[in-house]
């Protein structure tokens, strides 16, 4: 009877149980632990300070960026300040983005913007939180500068040839947020309603904002 217990490896929800992380630590995991313990031992940092910083970073989310985008859609003067200095405009809204140097790039009828970091995983974490896993993959990082339109089609976005695509490679000190075009049919929506239309992928340029009621 080859299939006496076919579901032993599945949880009650029908999914496989996650295996325990019993593999040995990698070189860099070991180094991170060693450096962290040394910093604590020498009194440079306390465990509580480290935990607080992790909580602060985990508290950042794409909702912060969505609020910035919605403000720009609602307030032309704010939008002008955002395009002039996105870091200052984000701080003006009360977001603690630390030393982040941020540039906002605007999608228009003629231009679509896409953000990548080909060298590593640079991302406006201090505003949007941690990047999605796909953003850090070699496939995305190499293909976004070579065949970005094919990548966008896989995300469900088929750009017309008449739209110029600008790919922003975050190679050094700046980070980027895409200011998507405000969707049609949203003229009676307020800022908080607009913010709900702004997805993380739309602020990377890998997607468009949601349609109202969609």
């Amino acid at each position, binding site marked *: 009877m080859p299939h006496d217990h076919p579901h032993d490896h599945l949880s009650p929800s029908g999914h496989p149980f996650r295996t325990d992380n019993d593999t040995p630590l990698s070189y860099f995991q070991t180094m991170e632990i060693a450096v962290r313990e040394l910093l604590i031992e020498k009194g440079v940092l306390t465990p509580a300070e480290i935990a607080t910083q992790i909580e602060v970073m985990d508290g950042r989310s794409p909702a912060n960026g969505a609020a910035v985008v919605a403000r720009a859609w609602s307030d032309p003067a704010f939008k002008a300040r955002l395009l002039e200095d996105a870091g200052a405009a984000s701080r003006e809204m009360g977001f603690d983005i630390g030393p982040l140097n941020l540039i906002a790039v605007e999608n228009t009828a003629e231009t679509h913007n896409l953000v990548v970091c080909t*060298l590593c995983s640079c991302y406006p974490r201090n505003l949007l939180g941690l990047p999605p896993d796909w953003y850090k993959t070699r496939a995305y990082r190499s293909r976004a500068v070579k065949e970005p339109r094919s990548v966008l089609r896989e995300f469900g976005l088929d750009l017309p040839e008449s739209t110029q*695509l600008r790919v*922003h490679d975050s190679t050094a*000190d*700046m980070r980027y947020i895409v200011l998507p075009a405000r969707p049609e049919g949203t003229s009676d929506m307020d800022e908080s309603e607009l913010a709900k239309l702004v997805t993380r992928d739309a602020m990377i340029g890998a997607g468009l904002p949601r349609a109202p009621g969609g």
Partner: protein
Amino acid sequence: MGERVRVKAMMPPGHVRAPAYLRGKTGEIERSLGAFKNPEQLAYALPASHKNLYRVRFTMAELWGAAAETPQDVVEAEIYEHWLERLPNAP
């Protein structure tokens, strides 16, 4: 658009922030970003000098030639001044 520049085709060892796919390629300065500490020194905890940083715009045609997906699309990247050489502006 701004000045025409070419990214130097150097291949030094160590931590650099000029991606290999842009080395030797010609683009235009999109904007100047001001001076930042040189990451090639910062990465090794050396005293770092300030270097001017520029956003440079490259066409897909320049980067990928006949293999370009859409030749008039562009890549914009941040390149430090010591990686750039000025070129005479096209007529």
